[in-house]
């Protein structure tokens, strides 16, 4: 265990959030400052200074610093990465521009596919060819590599991605290409597809490798600036960065595989929800994170976020599946919905109320911010409904303008539809809730789960305001709002386990597999993962390895991930693996196909070390209950009511273990407000969570 302060720094799009916890006293300090997009290290260092001042602590007192950043995804969205070249097998230099040929919207004739990260003039070919089993069809023509190296130099590229056909089976050609490039191009960073993503499907692999090369130089510079700045301040902490899969890695790993921190911040949010799930022993949790521009949901099973390899970044149509660049890296399986506090409300061409997906951003913000925003937004509706207060928003640091909110809603919705402003605000609130509920319902069903049995953990600036309504649409029974819910992601950084995931492709029928090769692949992955975890300060004895395989009935599109024994796979294992696969298959699809051969495609290893900051043993059990006393009251409007009624308002900081609050009511804290609708009953548990029980039949 570590001594001193443990720091979490989350660089978001607008704000940099810093949370610092003392490993002995458990004392927690928070700081929020503006992100500095031109040089993100500056804002991060300012945040470190700020929280240290807040705690009157010395830089030397920080022992561990954990970090999440949107730098990678922003660079990909705004196209601000390095000028990148791609090297393909001869005949396939157009792999990125051909893609998968499918359109993401069938009716829109004006759509554009995302521009590849590598321009045509920097797409090159070398002569070589591997067969699907990894054997060499044509040897690598080294002269062709040298010619490409010269062209790359002339073309002014700053990074190179190499993706040769079937290199997921044999990386030797790619490795030799790198060697030759480095001989001829000096220290230019080279990303190999056999290292970044050794998996089948050349377009997705090339896209991922190109993205890695594209962001690598940027991340290297940023990390250097951050580390130098910390040193100058006398901070000697070990630094770890949150991976998109929710694990932590050392800077060396991140420099090499930069693309794997793409969803670092949202992953930290899901980790927060996962830790609440473990605390309260909830087997199935829906993580609901709603901020200013978007909402993100993730499924948490048995205390761990679900992970996917199907991810896209930089969508040309922000929320349209298929309109972005595919990144096949392990990522917390998040869906992002264009629904946040700042989402714009308007009447569409069919005369219906539409919320989002575009939003007003931080400046000018919703109409009620009084910064000249003209658009009606979700936050304006929440204010009109009385859920937010003009005086206590952000702990009173920001005064809200209720007249401006009413006027904006009047103009955008009430007047065109001939309804009252109150009615319009209720409609906006319920439509945005239903949109988020629908999206998470589809997310659950697409992954083979019934959303009804889940508990929700709500956080993010707007999350606690809307969680109750969304939970009700989904007919969930339990909602939990953790402490400091408005800073959900930064808190998650402190709780994340140190994990590392690897995979190898090796395809074969269960009854005919070369099991010695499979074991050799696992040994290779274990070695690589152990090195990565040890650099993150995990002792050998603390590392646990979990092995899985992607299996399917032969010919089937979708693989299922099946757990494997921890060692000793051999010919006799086939029967047991078949059984495990069939059990899982029947659970999801209600039947098996008994005589059909089963094949394995990818072999995966998850290496896991403990989190740096162990939570205090969860005293989540509540003591004797008692009804809390409200601090004040104000008129609020809920669905089904003809006019606003006076409802109670509580301050979160005075609510203690066992206190109860009955809805309709709100509980306010600095970074957010928790809404408890009619029929909801809340109780504060032993670690300060607000635990809300929703009754069956009320309306959202």
């Amino acid at each position: 265990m570590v001594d001193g302060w443990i720091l979490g720094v989350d660089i978001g799009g607008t704000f940099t959030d810093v949370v610092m916890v003392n490993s002995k006293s458990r004392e927690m300090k928070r700081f929020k400052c503006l992100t500095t997009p031109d040089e993100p290290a500056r804002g991060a260092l300012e945040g470190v200074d700020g929280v240290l001042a807040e705690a009157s602590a010395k830089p030397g007192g920080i022992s561990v610093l954990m970090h999440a950043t949107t730098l990678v995804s922003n660079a990909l969205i705004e196209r601000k990465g390095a000028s990148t070249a791609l090297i393909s097998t001869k005949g396939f230099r157009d792999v990125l521009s051909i893609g998968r040929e499918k359109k993401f919207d069938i009716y829109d004739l004006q759509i554009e596919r995302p521009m590849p990260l590598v321009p045509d003039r920097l797409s090159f070919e070398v002569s070589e060819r591997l067969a699907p089993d990894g054997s060499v069809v044509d040897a690598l023509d080294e002269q062709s590599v040298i010619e490409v190296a010269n062209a790359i130099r002339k073309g002014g590229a700053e990074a190179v991605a190499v993706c040769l056909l079937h290199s997921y089976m044999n990386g030797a050609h790619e490795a030799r290409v790198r060697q030759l490039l480095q001989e001829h191009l000096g220290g230019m960073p080279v990303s190999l597809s056999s290292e970044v993503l050794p998996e089948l499907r050349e377009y997705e692999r090339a896209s991922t490798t190109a993205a890695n090369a594209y962001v690598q130089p940027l991340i290297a510079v940023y990390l250097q600036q951050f580390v130098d700045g910390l040193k100058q301040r006398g901070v000697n902490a070990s630094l770890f960065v949150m991976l998109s899969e929710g694990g932590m890695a050392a800077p060396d790993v991140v420099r090499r595989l930069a693309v794997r921190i793409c969803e670092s911040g949202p992953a930290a949010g899901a980790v927060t929800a996962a830790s609440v799930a473990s605390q309260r022993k909830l087997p199935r949790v829906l993580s609901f994170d709603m901020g200013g521009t978007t909402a993100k949901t993730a499924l948490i099973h048995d205390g761990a976020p679900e992970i996917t390899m199907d991810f896209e970044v930089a969508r040309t149509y922000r929320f349209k599946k298929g309109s972005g660049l595919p990144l096949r890296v392990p990522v917390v399986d998040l869906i992002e919905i264009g629904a946040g506090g700042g989402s714009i409300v308007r009447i569409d061409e069919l005369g219906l109320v539409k919320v989002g997906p575009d939003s007003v951003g931080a400046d000018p913000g919703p109409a009620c911010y009084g910064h000249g925003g003209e658009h009606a937004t979700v936050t304006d509706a929440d204010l009109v409904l009385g859920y937010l207060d003009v005086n206590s928003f952000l702990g009173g640091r920001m005064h809200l303008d209720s007249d401006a909110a009413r006027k904006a809603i009047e103009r955008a919705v009430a007047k065109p539809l001939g309804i009252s402003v109150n009615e319009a605000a209720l409609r906006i609130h319920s439509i945005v809730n239903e949109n988020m509920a629908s999206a998470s319902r589809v997310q659950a069903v697409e992954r083979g789960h019934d959303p009804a049995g889940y508990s929700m953990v709500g956080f993010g600036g707007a999350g606690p305001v809307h969680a109750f309504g969304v939970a009700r649409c989904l007919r969930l029974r339990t909602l939990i709002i953790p402490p400091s819910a408005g800073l959900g992601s930064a808190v998650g950084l402190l709780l994340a386990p140190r994990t590392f995931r690897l995979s190898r492709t090796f395809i074969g029928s269960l009854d005919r597999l070369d099991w010695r090769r499979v074991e050799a692949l696992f040994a290779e992955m274990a070695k690589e993962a152990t090195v990565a975890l040890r650099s993150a300060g995990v002792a050998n004895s603390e590392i646990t390895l979990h092995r899985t395989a992607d299996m399917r009935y032969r010919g089937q599109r979708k693989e299922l991930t099946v757990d494997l024994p921890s060692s000793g796979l051999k010919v006799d294992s086939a029967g047991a693996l078949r059984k495990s696969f069939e059990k899982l298959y029947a659970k999801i699809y209600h039947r098996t196909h008994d005589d059909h051969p089963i094949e394995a495609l990818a072999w995966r290893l998850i290496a896991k070390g403990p989190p740096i900051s162990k939570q205090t043993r969860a005293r989540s059990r509540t003591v004797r209950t008692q009804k809390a006393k409200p601090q004040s009251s104000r008129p609020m409007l809920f669905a089904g009511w003809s006019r606003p009624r006076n409802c109670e308002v509580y301050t979160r900081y005075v609510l203690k273990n066992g206190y109860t609050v009955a809805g309709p009511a709100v509980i306010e804290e600095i970074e957010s407000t928790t809404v408890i609708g009619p029929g909801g009953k809340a109780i504060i548990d032993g670690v300060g969570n607000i635990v809300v029980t929703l009754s069956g039949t009320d309306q959202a």
Partner: protein
Amino acid sequence: MSKKSNSAATQLEVAWNTLISIATEQAAAMVNSSFSAVLGEMEDLSAGVFDASGTMMAQSVQGAPGHLGSLSLGVKHFCTAFPIKTLKPGDVLITNDPWLVSGHKHDITVVTPVFLGKTLVGFTASNCHTVDIGGRIFSAAGTDVYEEGLQIPLLKLFDAGKRNNQLFTIIQENVRSPDLVIGDLMAQVSANETAARRLTEFMRENGLKNLRRLSLAITGRTERFMRQAISAVPDGEYSDRIVLDGFDLPLHIEVKLTVKGDRIIVDYEGTSPQVARGINSVLNFTRAFTYYALKCLLAPDSPNNDGSFSPIEVRAPEGSIVHARYPAAVGGRHLVGLYIPFAIFGAMKEILPERVVADSSVLSAVTLNGLDNAGKPYVFTFFSSGGMGARAGKHGMSATAFPSNVANVPIEIMEQSIPVLILKREIIADSYGHGQYRGGSGQRIALTLRTQTAASVSCMVERTTSAPRGFLGGGSGHAARLLIDDASIDPKKSHVLKKDQVLVLETPGGGGYGPEKGDPHG
């Protein structure tokens, strides 16, 4: 909707979104539990939610354009064949009759009646391209529909929950890959059921006894919007004639659109008579692509349901390639049907110049069929698209499926699946139509066998003679080519590919838009 009720769940917006999300869930469940690449990888499918009269209220967000419109038309045939009083909870209905739904036997439609208690309140339906349906391999070379495989009439696949074992056995014994075919069929059955459960749940929660009023509200609004969009188009007659390769001789589609107030009549009078090969389109399929093209032009953003179709009347001469008479061969009906949007865009290009897309490629399919080195038979179809046409203000997209929406197969998946070596897949530079905005480029795929023995190659390649036209002064894209060892081969027939021979497919480039700068004729 009740005016005094504030309850969100009875708001039209919310109800509408819920129905679309049910249909989308249905499609997702189908893809997830699918067995074949055609469902799982290419997503050649559609799903929809219908009211008790067979009116489509919502469809899945993703889907194949030719399927979506056809499904809506097809369910009405089910309603006629199975009057409400003959249906029981647990029934599941099926057909693949090309004339009733989407135009070839490879598409299987499954319709599940939805009951709230004992009352039939609606249907959930899906339509999927199956891997095999017996008869010829997926081909345009059939001479009548009997050659094209098993025909499943309108039947009950499940009767009050009881599996129709005889029908299952007949299907199993007639197809080449029964496991995949039955697996996909069961995926349809369970996806329909999932959607049906969600629909009744939604109705119970909101106290709805039937879907009539909701359906009228949804289709009414959509129809009004479509009518407004049509009204914005000046009245008049707009026509075009488009030439297609045909099977052995060129054919043509004639179209005349009459815009009159808020209605459009689309008439195909003058189109070539049906032919004795499998490229004829049935009326349903023609209607589906007519609706699709007009929706793209007039109302791309509004949700799709039966309301979008009602202001549009389609007339086509019976016995033509766009309204084939039974028992015409129809296996490759998309080789005609996919041209329909371009005939319509061609007719409207002067009046809606900012909305149309110039001619694009037509999906090519090549099916390889042979023995691997261990002597095991294989069969594999790959699809490939060329350039999409240019638009006002934008170049066309290269190698993009349009108007179909079928994805390609990764090179590595294909080489893992069958013993071929792909030599190249590259954009054909300069294959696009020139213009102020240029069309998308086509692509070249070259492959050879990795076996000692030869293989058969069954081809469905279009636009080898009828290159994609440019619009409004734009130039034509390059035509498609199909070659073995540099010699052109018939693009609609089967050929033998021998060891070491190289098969090359070049897909067409899209047409350009507007005269090219510096073009003296522009």
